[in-house]
Structure formats: C-alpha cells, structure tokens
C-alpha cells in the first residue's frame, strides 16, 4: 500500500478543470485522505453547491488514482463549508499571475495592480468569481469572491 503522503502528492498534480493554474488540493476541494478497511477514502467538498466542475474533479481523481492501482473511494462532504480562507498565500499568488484577482478584501487589478477598480457584476464566468473593471488600465478581470 502506498503512503497517504503519496496519495496527497498525486492529488496535488490534478489541476482545477476551470483554473488550471492551481490544483484541486490548493483550491481546498480535497479535504481528507483516510484509510478505511484497507482502502483510501478521499473526501472532497464542492466550492459552490451547484458547481459543475465537481463531477469533473471526481472523474479526474478516479483517473489519476486508478493509474496507480490504488484501491479507493470518493466521498462528498459538506461540512465544514468550503471557504476561500483555506487558500494559501502561494495559491493566491498563482491566481494573480494567472490573471485572476485572488480572494482578498481589497480588490486589485491582476494586470496593473491598481486598486482603482469597479464592480461590474457579482457573478462571472464561474459561480466562484465576480466581474470587475480596472479604471487605471481599463482591463476587465475576474475576482475570486471571498466566501
């Protein structure tokens, strides 16, 4: 049997299907890896309850772990509810470099770093983001909502 750490490492290689700059572990979707009855139990949690990417993430986990002949099961857990507080500073930096303003209280343009920005809509290309416009460089951009 491979170690738990090895499982975490494999999971860390799986990119978020909508934001490939970060992994599903960095996003905070993978909550736990336990060993139950000689099997790995991977617990995942949805970012938003209707997020269509969750099924895709589940499929990606299945694909990755099956490649290594690992006996596992995936469980969805709702509590504690997913929060952007689980993202590390490193993950937030990756998002910013990718062109998405990370979930921080003060919203800055990921392009020119100006904080002279304007909210266009609470909702954007995915449920977890809102839409902003930068008044300095005039570029529109996505902001990861703090929830």
């Amino acid at each position, binding site marked *: 049997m491979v170690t738990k750490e090895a499982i975490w490492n494999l999971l860390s290689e799986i990119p978020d299907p909508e934001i490939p700059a970060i992994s599903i572990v960095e996003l905070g979707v993978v909550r736990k890896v336990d060993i139950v009855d000689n099997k790995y139990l991977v617990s995942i949690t*949805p970012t938003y309850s209707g997020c269509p990417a969750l099924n895709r993430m589940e499929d990606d986990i299945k694909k990755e772990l099956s490649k290594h002949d690992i006996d596992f099961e995936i469980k969805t857990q*709702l*509590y*504690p*509810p*997913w929060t952007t507080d689980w993202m590390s500073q490193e993950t937030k930096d990756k998002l910013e470099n990718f062109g998405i303003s990370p979930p921080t209280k003060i919203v800055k343009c990921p392009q020119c770093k100006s904080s002279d920005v304007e909210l*266009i809509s*609470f909702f954007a290309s995915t449920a977890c983001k809102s*839409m902003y416009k930068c008044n300095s460089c005039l570029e529109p951009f996505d902001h990861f909502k703090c*929830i």
Partner: protein
Amino acid sequence: MNFSTDFEKYIARLADSNLIMGQRLSELCSKGPYLEEDIAISNIALDYLGQANMLYELLKKAGNGKYSVDDYVFHRNERNYYNLLLVEQDNGHFGKTMAKIFLYSTYQKILYSQLSKSTNDDIKAIALKSIKEVNYHFKHSRAWVLRLGDGTKESKVKIQESIDELWRFTGEIFESDYVENNLISENIITASNTYYDEWSKIVKDTLLEALLTEPENVVMLTGGKKGLHTEKLGFMLAEMQYLPRTYPNAKW
C-alpha cells in the same frame, strides 16, 4: 410516491422550492438582457439546483435509498410536489424575475440562518453551505429592485406591478402546519411563522428605499406545501420530465 415521515415532508418542501426556482430561472439562460446579467441569472439558477440536489440527497438518505434523486425530480406528479407557489410563477419580464428572486432570497437568508443552528448535522451543513450563496442572490436582486424602483418612469411602474402581482404568493411562506411541529420540538428546524417579522422588515425597508409601495389588503393564496398548485407548475413539469419519462434509459 408518498413521504412517510414529517422530516421527509419538510425536506421535500425545501428541495422542491429550490428545484422549481432553479428550473424557472434556467429558462432565461441565453435570454438575459445583456451578457453579464445572463451569466448572473444562470449562476443563480445553478446555485438553486445545487441546493436542491443536496436536499434530495438528504431525502434519499432519509428514505433509506429507496428512491434516487432523479426519481424525486422526474417521477413525481404535480400533486406530489410541495414547492411554494411563488417559485412556480413564470419569469415575466426582467423586473418580475428580480422581484421574485428578491422576495424568495430574503426568506432564504432567514431560513438558512435558522437552520444553521439545527440539531441535525446534515441540515446544518446544507444551511451553512447555502447561506453563502443566498447572500449573493439577495444582494444582486435587492440592488435591481432599488435601481428599477428609483429608475425611470417605466421601470418604476413595471417593478411595482411585479411586486403587486407576486405579493399574494408570499403569505404562504410563513405558514406553519403539523409537519413542522415535531421537528420544532426536536430543534431540527424553527417554525416558518417566526420568519415573518424579519422578512417583512427587510422587504419594507427595501421598498421604501426603492420609492415603491408595499401592497395592502392582499388576499393570500396558499396550497403549495400541500401539493395544491397554480396552473403554472403542470406545464413546467411536463417539459422538465418529458425526456426521462419518454426514454427511461436515456443517458447523456
């Protein structure tokens, strides 16, 4: 399909209201007044469907897996749907859609904040998850009520008409009946009739700020929680359920 316990009956009400709300809003996908709003409405619809899914999963668990989530959604008829009458009303124009989301999300904010204290861990988890989403539905729709009410002559007339038209469906939200009694004594839920004061205050304040008038002396319609619906629901279910009923083994 009948629900045998009060717990299942209560969860079915919440699940059905979210499903019908989400299905109704999804009719507007690609028909929004402009791109950003189209995306907003689709996102809100998705949240409602997601919340409905969590509640149907809980229903499945309560029913020991006898029925699947798809069974609940596609194989129940109108009289076995227990959603609020408000949510099955058609989208109408944009103002009416926003008025509906506003009236419903104001109630949901209160509901979920109460349920987040539930002694039932599943309900608590669903409530804590959902309330984060509902806060955005509320902020978004409230902003539109203010903008349309305090907007042009035409927008003011239209949003006022929408509030007037939907008002008769709001009384039912706060009706408590025998289904709730045991669940309340076990601290699983709180009574629907205790939500009214807070809801009324938020709605009143918003209408005032939007320069709109609160409807008075309205006769309230009721029945959704007992499976008695307006003529709108049947058409919607017929469309939604057609495919899985006609082709039972159809796969995506």
